[in-house]
């Protein structure tokens, strides 16, 4: 319940944050909303020596329209993302998925950047951002780089971020009205992590499916795309049989984890069922 002692550094800008990380190296950890980090620190499963608090970095908060995409500041809270008019208009799926994260109190403090940087394949954000082909923007002393969601999530609680790198923004595509979406989160109780989640995005095109993207939660050490499903649906008729056939491929190539809620075969099965439901609802939405 009581974290180990640490040095606290409050920064006022991204540059200061980058400087602090450079100075303290791997001993330093960034504090965003703290809703993944602080519980781990209280159980002393995370013991950072230096905590660099991004809470006062105003430039990291908010959503802006960047022309062909939306740029969401890393310190934008889940609550802000869910209720942001730009997100709701152009990227409703993120609003929906964010509403499934934690609980209201968690969403009041937790941030999109923190959820991404935590790199938890059982979290709701990664699969969604993967399906969206979102881009992460990060800054280190050498400058700024962009990392695709596909490259960002690299392992169990691991991301492509270097120790001295600050995730600053998440870039989201603007989706027009031809896209439908749905997130199917399957869990034991409402507070629990997803056993499996399926996030579907479907672009409708003259009664057919122009493009379908499916991101899967908790089906491996990193969030995965149901590529087999996506391939079969590209250009397919928007009909039940086509959806069923495609969803049957959802778990292809995955290596799901085993825990007290599910063995791999059940997780794969759920991936297929939830993918089908997410696709059906996407087409209906």
């Amino acid at each position, binding site marked *: *319940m*009581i*974290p*180990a*002692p*640490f*040095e*606290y550094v*409050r920064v006022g800008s991204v540059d200061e944050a980058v400087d602090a990380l450079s100075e303290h190296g791997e001993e330093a950890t960034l*504090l965003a909303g*703290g*809703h993944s980090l*602080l*519980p781990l*620190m*209280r*159980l002393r499963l995370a013991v950072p020596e230096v*905590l660099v*608090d991004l*809470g006062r970095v105003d430039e990291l908060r908010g959503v802006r329209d960047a022309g062909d995409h939306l740029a969401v500041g890393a310190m934008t809270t889940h*609550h802000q993302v869910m209720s942001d008019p730009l997100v709701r208009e152009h990227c409703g799926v993120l609003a929906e998925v964010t509403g499934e994260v*934690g*609980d*209201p*109190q*968690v969403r*009041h*403090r937790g941030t999109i950047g923190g959820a991404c940087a935590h790199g938890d394949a059982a979290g709701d954000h990664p699969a969604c951002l993967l399906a969206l082909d979102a881009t992460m923007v990060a800054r280190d002393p050498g400058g700024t780089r962009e990392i695709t969601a596909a490259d960002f999530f690299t392992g169990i609680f691991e991301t492509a971020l270097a120790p001295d790198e600050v995730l600053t923004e998440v870039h989201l595509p603007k989706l027009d009205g031809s896209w439908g979406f749905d997130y199917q989160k399957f869990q034991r109780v*409402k*507070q629990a992590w997803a056993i499996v989640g399926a996030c579907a995005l479907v672009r409708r095109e003259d009664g057919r499916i122009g493009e379908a993207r499916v991101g899967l939660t908790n089906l491996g050490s990193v969030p995965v795309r149901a590529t087999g499903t996506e391939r079969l649906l590209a250009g397919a008729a928007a009909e039940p049989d086509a959806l069923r056939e495609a969803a049957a491929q959802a778990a292809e190539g995955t290596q799901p984890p085993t825990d007290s809620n599910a063995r791999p075969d059940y997780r794969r099965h759920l991936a297929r069922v939830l993918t089908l439901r997410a696709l059906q609802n996407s087409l209906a939405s």
Partner: protein
Amino acid sequence: MPRISVNVDGTAFTDEVEPRLLLVHYLRDRLGKTGTNIGCDTSNCGACTVVMDGLSVKSCTVLAVQADGSDVTTIEGLADDGRWHPLQKAFHTEHALQCGYCTPGMIMASVGLLADNPDPSDEEVREGLEGNLCRCTGYQNIVKAVRTAAAEMHEGATR
């Protein structure tokens, strides 16, 4: 040690705190505001919920240093000059508490919920309180109480 200024239940406090001090420990151990309880160590139970700058938060998952400059309302600051908040009244009349340990957090989460949605359905109340665990009541009377309070607040607002 960092110095923080926090307004708690209408009183301004300035204190030097160890960075690792959680807001809930600051409230309980430093300010003596023991109305806010601790029920878990994983941010699940919500017993420690307070309203910070208008939003419900779990004070076990906020460092006191993060609350610097904030306005915090705990269960102890909810009544207005001794007059109970409609939620306090409704929890009492609808029997929405038994042991009462989760109640401060449950009520403060409900304050946040009604600020977001002044007229929630049963379902919306249940979803809105998903971050608060009660082991005694089975939640049914809590749902009832929140809706009763919402109705009273609505009546008060339109009168």
